[in-house]
């Protein structure tokens, strides 16, 4: 059918546009140094080699950068959700003394997002420096959580609003405290919302640059978003192939995770995104 063919054509065009930059970088990563700047440029190198990957993996801490990123992201997501869930509960289920307060708080959550970490980075650096909290993953996680929790709260409040009050009311009538009703009844129902929020937080935290850049000076603590800059050609050498290999390696875990969890991710977003 013509429509199906058109759709496939669309798939291919879209796929190429989004994949091509990565393919080019992959191509650069598989070249020996002599072929890096060859003219005319070829997509497929003549003498492909895994030397760059070997150099990057054995001679540099990329694996550690990736692990640091995973560590920071997981801890941040857990802590941010731990703070956001009770906050969302309060905003969704509890009455405020003054009715105008709730929209104000919600707006506040959004407004706080506006404040780029770039703005708070320097005062935080100076402050943490005097406290001796530089080069501490715990400090970085704390800042990440502060950056993510408002957004998580905002999203979870939206999800909770779609869950009928009757559900947890019933539990409370049966004698549960609010906390119990939250943990036993609401949390299981909120799972799709939690999942999609977790994913969004993970992605934004994975890409965080300025906070770790400012608060970490030891490179064995860097997440990959900061560590990757180390591979850019410095004043004394060309490291384009290394940079390319590092870029591909740092993209792989994210891509694989997405491929595997895709159905789940999209399902979660579908279930909760509509209310917004």
């Amino acid at each position: 059918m013509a429509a199906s063919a058109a759709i496939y054509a669309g798939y291919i065009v879209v796929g190429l546009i989004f994949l091509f930059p990565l393919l080019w970088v992959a191509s650069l990563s598989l070249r020996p140094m002599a072929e890096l700047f060859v003219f005319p440029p070829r997509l497929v190198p003549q003498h492909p080699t895994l030397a760059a990957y070997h150099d990057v993996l054995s001679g540099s801490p990329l694996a550690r950068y990736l692990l640091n990123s995973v560590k920071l992201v997981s801890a941040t997501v857990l802590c941010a959700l731990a703070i956001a869930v009770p906050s969302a509960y309060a905003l969704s289920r509890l009455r405020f003394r003054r009715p105008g307060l709730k929209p104000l708080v919600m707006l506040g959550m959004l407004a706080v997002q506006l404040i780029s970490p770039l703005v708070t980075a320097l005062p935080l650096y100076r402050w943490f420096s005097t406290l001796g909290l530089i080069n501490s993953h715990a400090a970085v996680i704390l800042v990440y959580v502060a950056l993510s929790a408002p957004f998580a709260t905002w999203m979870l409040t939206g999800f909770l609003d779609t869950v009928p009050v009757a559900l947890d009311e019933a539990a409370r009538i049966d004698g549960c405290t609010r906390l119990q009703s939250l943990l036993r009844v609401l949390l299981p129902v909120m799972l799709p919302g939690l999942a999609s929020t977790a994913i969004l937080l993970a992605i934004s935290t994975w890409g965080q640059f300025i906070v770790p850049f400012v608060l970490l000076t030891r490179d064995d603590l860097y997440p990959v978003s900061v560590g990757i800059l180390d591979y850019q050609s410095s004043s004394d050498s060309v490291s384009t192939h290394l940079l390319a290999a590092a870029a591909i390696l740092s993209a792989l875990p994210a891509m694989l995770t997405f491929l595997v969890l895709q159905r789940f991710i999209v399902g979660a977003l579908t279930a909760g995104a509509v209310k917004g």
Partner: protein
Amino acid sequence: MIAAGRRPLEDRPFLWLAPLLLLLAVLYLYPLVDVTRLSLTDATDAATPAHYTFASYRSVIGSAEFLAMTRVTVVFVAASIAGQLVFGMLIAALVCEGERRHLPGAAIVRAIVLVGWVLPGVVIGIIWKLLLDESGAGIVAYAASLMGARNPTFLSAPVPALFWVTIANIWRGTAFSMIMQYAGMKTVPPELYEAAIVDGAGILQQFRYVTLPSLRGILLINLVLITIATLNTFDMVLPLTGGGPGRATEVIALYIYHLVFSEFQFGRGAAVAVVLMAIGLALSACYARMLQRGRTA
């Protein structure tokens, strides 16, 4: 029934909100206060003593340069929003249709598009810089020369540089837009489409009268989130052009980065940061009103 007097502890919202508010107060309020204080000084590096003055604001606001940077930022943000929303919608529609007809491969397309979003901004800047190499070893330059361009210019002239920086940003952010709209499209009840078809609507009309209205809420949220993210973007631009040529791609966020981390002008950097926050807050308020109206509509 709650007595008119004291409410039980667990009913007080601020108790539940306490951890969040405490965190925000400590890690946001304090730095914000400090930034505002810094903006009212002429602070530079740690060694020179600082004095309180409006000079930082004066030197920034109203300078022709700042105006130029504001223009750059406005163009960058507006074009990114438009691009991400439109392409996100097109791709979401494409994938939705494909799934509706049970064509395999939708999952792969979604995953591919998401690649751009998941990579850290600095990596994306680096990737596009490699792509847009103008010296002939660059693949895009080569393709352009094959198509007849004699001196392919991507990042070495002001207008093309801003264009390509925006393209890279759209490449990066379309995925999020797509996912949100895809989720929205999937929840449109098929009956609405069936009714429209019965009424004689073609594909475009279905889109206009069924899909778009259903997506309204999501589009607004999308708009807010993209604006916030793009307004604060600098990590991608840094390796890509560094703000150049000249200041042609220096968005305000990048300017703040340079002021603070390259030039050690903490006072000026703080002043620009405060201005950026004010702009963001104004936009936020606008959007909030649009959202409110959207809800009551």
